[in-house]
């Protein structure tokens, strides 16, 4: 049970304190099922060091996602507040913010404060209903700032519509951090009877900070989109390094499975340009390898690209910056166009799906409006259409499926992955809830790669907590370490977040809960593979 704690009010966001507004304690956290029900109580995140506290803003919850430096003096504070206000004006202007003006205004104006959305939010629920993480907390604060400082409809109306927020530096600093306590999973928006989208409001806040004030997490901006635009991939992989990796993949296939495959690279006029999250090459090379084995076995006309921007599907701009988003999307499509392929196919990367296939749809004009689709329908055709020789018995272990928000709730690709798993995994079981109702992995919107100070701990113990609970509940009858279990997460970022929660709770060592992508299971079921594709080696 959570201990009695002070109720946080909207106006508390403006309080000037040395201590954070809240600190989530072990007692607050949503309990976990076995085997983690007996876990000793441990604070979800460590306090920042005195030096960190002195240098960086952490007055929201004692966590720093942004490493936002504290202003040196009053003048600097005032300047920053003025810039925030100017950004807010732009956010609300049709001219300046045409890409998202309409859904933003709709979300701001339609909320009836019924709080139906609160219980839908994994962060709010996992943290033991911390007021500041309630989906509407940041939105209502923004609404009231707009009321008081932008709309200016006279004293009485302002008072009646809520004028209790003081726009000062603590408010701005806390809002900046708060925009990074929401994974943009939009489960709350799905739940809202009025169609108000608190996830979008969170994203627009991030955008204001980035596009107007140059404030964004280093992992998303400097070593994310900026690096991608400079060298071609957010992982920093250069074109030459990529080509080396392809050779390594070919050797690996030969060595392990005795097949010599020539992985097509830069093949002009191929039907398909397959584009992976480059993190796969760094952390889960077995995923692009499985794609290559499957596509070759099915005799597809396909290629990878070694051209700068052509071997990276990520686009972190999706989460925080329209301009960076557009720049990257255009670069990626340009590669496909030059290569004269028939279509681009996204590999196992959720936000690349949503970003390039859906959102970018309305910035790609004329010849840049290039055919783009998910790997899932294609893989379904191969698996269920009999193009591959498969033996489901090779996958005879419990498997569950995580639904990446970007692919499922935000794009409506719900069934192909299930039809594939039903076909090749005799012990496939759904987690609850699943499909469009499933919870975020906790690593959404960039969290999976954000590791600033104590943010990683916050993610593992709060934003990913609901996913951890779901996984344990799904496997509760097979927790025995003698039974290997597989969490299938067909998205690179989700995979990273799930790896981290399994590993920090020793669930592989103690309970044999493993994780991986979808194509690995398909390759594992292929009849003519001399040895099992999945090697159950933790990484």
């Amino acid at each position, binding site marked *: 049970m959570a201990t009695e704690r002070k109720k946080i009010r909207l106006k508390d966001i403006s309080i000037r304190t040395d201590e954070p507004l809240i600190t989530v304690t072990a007692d607050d956290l949503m309990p976990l099922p076995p085997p983690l029900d007996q876990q000793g109580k441990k604070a979800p995140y460590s306090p920042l060091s005195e030096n960190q506290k002195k240098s960086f803003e952490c007055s929201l919850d004692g966590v720093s996602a942004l490493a936002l430096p504290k202003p040196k003096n009053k003048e600097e504070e005032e300047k920053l507040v003025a810039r925030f206000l100017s950004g807010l004006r732009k956010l609300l202007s049709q001219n300046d913010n045409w890409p998202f003006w309409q859904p933003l205004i*709709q979300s701001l104006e339609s909320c009836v404060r*019924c709080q139906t959305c609160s219980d839908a939010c994994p962060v709010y629920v996992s943290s033991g209903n911390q007021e500041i993480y309630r989906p509407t907390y940041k939105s209502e604060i923004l609404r009231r700032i707009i009321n008081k400082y932008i709309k200016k409809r006279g004293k009485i109306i302002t008072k009646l519509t809520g004028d209790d927020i003081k726009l000062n530096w603590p408010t701005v600093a806390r809002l900046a951090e708060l925009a990074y306590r929401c994974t943009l999973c939009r489960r709350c928006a799905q739940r809202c009877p009025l169609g108000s989208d608190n996830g979008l409001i969170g994203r627009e806040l991030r955008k204001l900070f980035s596009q107007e004030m140059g404030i964004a997490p280093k992992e998303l901006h400097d070593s994310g989109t900026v690096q991608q635009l400079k060298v071609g991939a957010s992982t920093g992989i250069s074109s030459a390094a990529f080509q080396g990796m392809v050779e390594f993949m070919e050797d690996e296939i030969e060595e392990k499975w005795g097949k010599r495959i020539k992985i097509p690279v830069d093949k002009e006029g191929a039907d398909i340009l397959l584009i992976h999250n480059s993190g796969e090459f760094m952390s889960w090379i077995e995923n692009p390898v499985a794609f290559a084995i499957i596509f070759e076995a099915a005799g597809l006309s396909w290629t990878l690209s070694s051209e700068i921007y052509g071997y990276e599907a990520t686009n972190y701009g999706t989460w925080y910056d329209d301009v960076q988003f557009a720049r990257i999307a255009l670069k990626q499509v340009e590669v496909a166009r030059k290569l004269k392929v028939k279509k681009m196919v996204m590999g196992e990367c959720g936000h690349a799906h949503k970003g390039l296939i859906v959102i970018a749809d309305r910035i790609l004009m004329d010849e840049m409006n290039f055919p783009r689709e998910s790997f899932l329908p294609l893989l379904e055709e191969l698996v269920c259409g009999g193009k591959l020789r498969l033996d489901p018995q090779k996958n005879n272990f419990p498997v569950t499926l995580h639904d990446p928000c970007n692919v499922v*709730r935000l794009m409506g690709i719900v069934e192909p992955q299930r039809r594939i798993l039903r076909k090749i995994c005799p012990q496939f079981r759904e987690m609850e809830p699943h499909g469009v109702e499933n919870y975020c992995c906790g690593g959404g919107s960039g969290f999976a790669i954000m590791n600033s100070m104590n943010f990683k701990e916050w993610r593992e113990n709060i934003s990913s907590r609901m996913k951890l609970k779901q996984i344990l509940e799904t496997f509760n009858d097979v927790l025995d370490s003698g039974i290997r279990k597989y969490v299938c997460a067909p998205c690179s970022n989700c995979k990273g977040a799930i790896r981290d929660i399994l590993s920090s709770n020793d669930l592989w060592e103690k309970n044999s809960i493993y994780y991986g992508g979808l194509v690995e299971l398909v390759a594992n079921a292929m009849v003519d593979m001399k040895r099992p594709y999945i090697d159950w080696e933790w990484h």
Partner: protein
Amino acid sequence: MILFIFYGSILFFIIAAALRVRRCVSAPIHLHWELYKGSSVYELTEWWGKTHNTFGEKLWSMILDLLFLREFYHRNRNFWYFLYPFHIGIYSLVLWHAWFLFGAKVISIEFLSIWGRLWGHVATGLTFFGIVGIFIKRVKDEDLKIYYPPIHYLKWPFLAVILLEAFYSVQFYFGDIFEDLLLEFHPNVATKAHLLFASVLLIYLPFSHIMQLFFRYYHYLRWDDVPNVRGSEIERRIKEHLERPVTWSAPHIQSGKRWREVASKLECPITEGK
């Protein structure tokens, strides 16, 4: 005078509502930002050649939602118990007024007096029940209270007063309303008060959430699942926006240039953020 205010408020309502609808319809086309309740066209290979949901389906779904408040029913039943009578009450009161005005010309006063009263009272009762329930919830539930702006705590009692007053005039002056208002245009005091309150309500309505409920279903908003194809209207509208200047000030944006240039040409090096 009172009729002047009343008809003025109707005119105000129509103009203000039209302006809000215009604001919504003429909004710049936004990027494709969708949510799905289930499978979409992206489950198909080469989805761009295949059909999306039909308008008819969306319309039907919208009608069911508005009639039954299905989403509240499924997701927040406690609220629905009060919200639904309130909405049904309001819908039937609107119909009641239309029927009453229409009936004045063609139906006998006796008929109107019996059935009109009954209908009116039931609708008023439902609405009143809803209002009281919602108000109590809003006052008692701490989670609801801290987010609810003060204006709404005036709105609900005000609506209740209008209803009580309407009940009073229909119950005791029904014949008079009928004669005075519709045939001779000389309303009595009770009716005058009702008309005055109703005028305030009409002025408030275009700014209320009721309008939002409809906007939510605006075709291009909630379910704007229309892909952009070459040479389409969507493409034409987006192209206009791409010619607008980018005004955001962070150093990496390259403010001042047009969207098209900012997105496609990276002439100056991109600076890193803070």
